[in-house]
């Protein structure tokens, strides 16, 4: 059937094997080994189309191996490896197996060469991942998972519709570069956009990611959205509308991240924002910009995971990730604090950290193509990312006011996972060449120039200065126990309220109509009763004399009419 062993099968085999291994260290070890084997297989795969077979008359390609799919396959394996070390202590079989299936589905999707297999893996990621939310096992998590599943499966259904339309139009199921035009490409584009959390399609993410388990959020943060970035880069590179969608994505979540109290939700908004950078890169579509998107996806999977890991460790030890309840943890969790700061520096693009060497490719890519306003927007977004993820998250968790909590340092497995991730964030920042070598196009870009370093440092330090000044002046919004309305309000409150309103309107109108009808019928019956009832006018026995009298009246009237 296939000439190469598809890496996703390793994950499925691992997930099937896992429940048979004794729960505890042996099982955790097996889980961690799976992505290592997968990475080895991906690394060894020769470029080209493999795993082709025909199914009910359709030519399917399980493995399209090129530089674009390989780097995503590798970083997904790496993310799974790190997340599974982080989740070493988890003894919940559902979470263990679903994490593997989820990573496997994501890796299967990036190698899928046709829309049918893409669709299957696309839905696979949706179904496997929802269990990481449900694994929290609370009522809120159950409903959140339901909402998440509806959106994710919905995205798959739209993809399916697009695929069928595409087949109708072109007679091909191949997943190739497309141009936005008819309903087919638009459907596929929107399906990708839902998973990529385009503005107004994004709500599933800040809703669901903070609802997952401590380890589940780390796993969730890596795959679904970056799979969508891959799919957009493969299918819609150079589509201009993506520039504006991406620019909106890069700024719109910033405001929410600044006022949000739940630090895992702050990080979800920042994840959404980082996706905006990648989407801009895809929209610009030049080799430089696409390289930037892929490099940024790689870097951001790592630093975002690192940030989620550090706040997850805080949640694991203190029971909360609310900024309003945390503070002063640096004394007792100093290593977690340092790892968090490394993640923060990476997302903020400090020189020598990973974001610096990846994000700048996208900014240069957009400015080279003359998108000056977009460049300005992205610069603003960079400064914003520094404010909410670079300063706010570590500041309110580890510094700020002492919460009085004295949690122990994170367990060894979490520290190990964070340590490796932090090391990679710095390694990529200091020596980006190995990552550049993996990018789809040749890189002719030098990130470390005096101009770039000095200007970036200016941007960051003056942003920090603004934060400090506004904090001291009491203008910076204090952290309050609250939720903030986002677009999901429309379907969680407005929609139900509208339906309720319409329902009560219809029922009152209906009631009024039925009531009026009944009254009419009753009136009719009463009238009939009056006329034909036992004592009714028409049912009475009349004296003959009165009939003669009335006939005389009638005849008189006729006579009168005749003479007139």
């Amino acid at each position, binding site marked *: 059937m296939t000439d190469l062993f598809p890496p996703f099968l390793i994950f499925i085999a691992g997930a099937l094997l896992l429940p048979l291994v004794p729960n505890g260290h042996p099982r955790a070890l097996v889980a961690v080994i799976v992505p290592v084997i997968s990475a080895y297989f991906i690394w060894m795969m020769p470029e080209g189309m493999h795993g082709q077979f025909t199914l009910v008359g359709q030519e399917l390609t399980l493995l399209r191996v090129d530089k674009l799919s390989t780097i995503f396959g590798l970083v997904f394996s790496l993310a799974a490896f790190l997340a599974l070390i982080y989740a070493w*202590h988890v003894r919940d079989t559902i979470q263990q197996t679903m994490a593997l299936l989820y990573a496997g589905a994501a890796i299967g999707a990036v190698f899928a060469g046709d829309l049918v297999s893409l669709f299957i893996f696309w839905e696979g990621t949706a179904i496997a991942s929802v269990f990481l939310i449900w694994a*929290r096992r*609370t*009522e*809120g998590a159950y*409903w959140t998972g339901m909402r998440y599943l509806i959106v994710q499966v919905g995205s798959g259904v739209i993809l399916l519709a697009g695929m069928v339309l595409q087949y109708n139009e072109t007679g091909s199921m191949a997943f190739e570069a497309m141009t936005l035009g008819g309903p087919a490409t638009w459907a596929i584009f929107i399906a990708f956009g839902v998973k990529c959390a385009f503005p107004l399609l994004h709500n599933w993410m800040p*809703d669901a990611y903070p*609802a997952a388990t*401590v380890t589940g959020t780390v796993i969730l943060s890596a795959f679904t959205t970056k799979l969508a970035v891959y799919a957009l880069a493969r299918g819609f590179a150079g589509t201009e509308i993506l520039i504006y969608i991406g620019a909106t994505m890069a700024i719109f979540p*910033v*405001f929410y991240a*600044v*006022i949000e109290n739940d630090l895992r939700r702050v990080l979800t908004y920042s994840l959404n924002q980082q996706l905006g950078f990648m989407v801009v890169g895809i929209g610009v579509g030049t080799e430089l910009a696409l390289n930037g998107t892929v490099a940024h996806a790689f870097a951001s999977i790592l630093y975002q995971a690192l940030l989620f890991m550090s706040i997850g460790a805080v*949640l*694991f*030890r*203190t*029971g909360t990730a609310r900024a309003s309840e945390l503070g002063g943890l*640096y*004394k*007792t*969790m*100093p290593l977690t604090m340092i790892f968090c700061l490394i993640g923060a520096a990476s997302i903020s693009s400090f020189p020598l950290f990973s974001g610096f060497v990846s994000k700048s490719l996208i900014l240069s890519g957009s*400015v*080279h193509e003359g998108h*000056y306003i977009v460049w300005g927007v992205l*610069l603003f977004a960079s*400064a*914003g990312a520094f*404010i909410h993820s670079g300063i706010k998250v570590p500041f309110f968790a580890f*510094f*700020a*006011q*002492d919460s*009085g909590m*004295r*949690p122990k340092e994170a367990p060894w497995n979490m520290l190990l996972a964070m340590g490796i991730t932090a090391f990679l964030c710095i390694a990529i920042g200091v020596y980006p060449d190995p990552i550049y070598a993996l990018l789809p196009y040749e890189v002719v870009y030098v990130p470390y120039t*005096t*101009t770039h370093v*000095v*200007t970036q440092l*200016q*941007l960051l*330090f*003056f*942003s920090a*200065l*603004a*934060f400090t*000044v506004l904090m001291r002046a009491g*203008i*910076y*919004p204090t952290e309050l*126990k*609250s*939720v*903030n*309305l986002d677009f999901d309000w429309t379907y*969680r*409150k407005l929609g139900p309220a509208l339906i309720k309103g319409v329902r009560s309107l219809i029922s009152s109108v209906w009631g009024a109509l039925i009531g009026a009808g009944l009254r009419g019928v009753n009136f009719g019956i009463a009238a009939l009763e009056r006329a034909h009832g036992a004592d009714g006018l028409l049912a009475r026995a009349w004296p003959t004399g009165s009939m003669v009298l009335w006939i005389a009246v009638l005849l008189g009237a006729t006579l009168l009419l005749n003479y007139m």
Partner: protein
Amino acid sequence: MSSEMKTPETDPSKLPWLGRKLLWLDNTRNVGHIIYALLILCAGLVAADFMYHKHSYLDIEDIPGFYAAFGFLMCAALIVCARVLRVILKRDEDYYSPKDIASEAYPEEQLSRETIND
């Protein structure tokens, strides 16, 4: 930050080594020093703009301290806007409950709440 909240007493010997080494951060005077250091760094970075040849694509980038001013103003604007936005967007934590996790406690059996005193 206001310093009205009393810092709970902690026996430094129970802190991890690194945590002990960082205790100087608790002292408000030292925080003041950090802010001074930040100010000096900022001044130095603007001064640095005059000392090298900038490779720029846009004319606006050539203005000395452009990135500094951009960073400061944009962040200040961002924070002020976010604060105003919150007035409109803020709701109680149980606004969506029970169909949301915001007002729920994280399930205790999935945590490992250990403190340094354990």
